[in-house]
């Protein structure tokens, strides 16, 4: 019997005998507890304001702008793409995730409440997974609908005929769903990165600013380096690409078939690293 066969024979009973039901219940319990804490506190308010900003502006436009001009599908598409890539992705979701995910662990250390979790009969990987899911739920519930609604409201000033043409007969629905999907992937990817930073850094804002710098300067970097970023893959799957700006290094967008699994794999890898760090975490609040 080959070593590989032996290994697979050894692993199979281990996976079968693992208490998956208990782990699932515990993960859900952590997620519920975190969600309850999150809404009992005020952490979500900043994310709510960030997510609601574009929607608020577009709604104001709907009421205040009597003459939206002639509808030209590509211009509106480009305007929304610009707003999505430069504000929603790079600012709103980014900082929303910084605020929510870095505090999942760091906030507990600062508030001296992490020990409640660590004294429960729950594997630390499960605590981390439950917290991550709660954070993801928190931001996704805000940013995904806000993005899709913003897209919808963007077209409302042009009247019902334009709306019908764009959404029923045109690309409106697929674009709206794609923007929602990209927003979700952004929440998942940035969420994992900032969760890790909340575990390893005493002040997660410092590495967060470094990530922001890296993601912002990304377009001026060589093509290979551009691919080591979350934003590159997110931009690759947005429905309307932005025109290249001055000094921007032109890079071929990565195919959605690579971008989406790539992002998910990156997210999983970062979460595994976070779980590894979490296993070794100690509670010594006085030294933090």
């Amino acid at each position, binding site marked *: 019997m080959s070593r590989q066969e032996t290994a697979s024979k050894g692993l199979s009973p281990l996976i079968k005998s693992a*208490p998956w039901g*208990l782990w699932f*219940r*515990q993960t859900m*319990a*952590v997620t*519920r*507890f975190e969600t*309850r*804490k999150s*809404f*009992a*506190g005020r952490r979500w308010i900043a994310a709510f304001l960030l997510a609601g900003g574009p929607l608020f502006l577009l709604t104001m436009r709907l009421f205040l702008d009597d003459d939206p001009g002639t509808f030209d599908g590509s211009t509106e598409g480009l305007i929304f793409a610009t707003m999505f890539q430069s504000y929603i992705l790079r600012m709103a979701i980014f900082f929303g995730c910084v605020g929510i995910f870095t505090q999942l662990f760091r906030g507990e250390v600062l*508030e*001296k*409440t992490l*020990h*409640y*979790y*660590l*004294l*429960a*009969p*729950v*594997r*630390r990987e499960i605590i981390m997974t439950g917290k991550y899911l709660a954070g993801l739920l928190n931001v996704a519930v805000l940013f995904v609908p806000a993005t899709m609604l913003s897209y919808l409201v963007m077209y409302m000033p042009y009247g019902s005929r334009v709306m019908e043409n764009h959404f029923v007969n045109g690309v409106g629905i697929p674009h709206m769903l794609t923007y929602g999907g990209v927003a979700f992937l952004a929440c998942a990817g940035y969420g994992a990165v900032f969760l890790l930073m909340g575990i390893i850094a005493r002040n997660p804002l410092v590495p967060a600013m470094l990530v922001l710098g890296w993601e912002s300067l990304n377009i001026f970097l060589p093509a290979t380096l551009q691919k080591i970023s979350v934003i590159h893959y997110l931009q690759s799957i947005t429905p309307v690409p932005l025109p290249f700006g001055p000094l921007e290094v032109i890079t071929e967008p990565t195919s959605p078939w690579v971008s989406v699994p790539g992002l998910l794999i990156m997210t999983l890898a970062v979460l595994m690293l976070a779980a590894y760090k979490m296993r*070794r975490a*100690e*509670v*010594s*609040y006085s*030294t933090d």
Partner: protein
Amino acid sequence: MSAENAIVFSNVSKFYGEVLGVNKINLTIPPGVTSLVGPNGSGKTTLMNVLTGLLQPSKGWVRVHGLSPAEPEEFYPLIGYCTQFDTFPKGLTGYALVHSLVTLHGKGRTDTESITWEAIGKVGLTDAAHRRIAGYSKGMRQRIKLATAIAHRPSVLVLDEPLNGLDPMARTEFIELFQQLAADGLHVVVSSHILHEVDMISDQVVMMSHGYVVAEGEIQGVRSEIDEHPITILVRCDRPTIIASRVFADPNVVEARISDDGRGVIVKTRNVDEFYSLLNAIVLEEALNVEGVATTDEDIHSVYNYLVGPNGQPT
């Protein structure tokens, strides 16, 4: 006592970088109430955090009923830890906190409800259960913390300064609760720097100073090992001068003096058993009327002072 039913520290050291937390701790704690005694910084909380897995030892290992914190699903149902941190997740009611933590133990919905109410009832917070913890008094916060520690019915209860902030009536209630839990077969490990409270609660003590265990065992046992400090005994009787004059015949008696109120004699002896034999003989021969005999320095405070000095410095 088998290791399966004990808390065992084997050569445990914990360093915070260059700073010593505890060093070379070898300790076996039997069931009953055990108190960790020592001034601030002596290593009590570090030892409790290592015991409960919140800290990992730099060297050595800890086992509770043969289990290590590396096996959380088996280990943590055994452990209830009431930490000294007076902190709670924001915005929660007492009930919500205990309920959420019981849920993490993977119990069913009905069990979780009943277990939560049982724990809240034990600490006397039923009426305030649905109020936010942020509005609780210090004593109520101590109670809800204790509820989180006992809710899942652990077999080892670790309490870090549990009587802090409690009023005298609550202290009495808590002490009775701890003694009841210990009588039910639990390990209760308590840390305190208020020595007379520990004296009331404990079956055995572990005395710590500067990260080391300086003595352990039953209070009287620890006391009797300190040969260089004679034990002080107060004998109250109708004619104390007779006892004072006769006990000087015993070479182990180093001092005998009449008490301030003139109704007793205070004797310092290096051999208690011999002194009691002599005292019996004197009482019978002289037909003395003895009201009471008590040691005055077998309490933890005296023992601690003898061992490590009033400021944590050895005498």
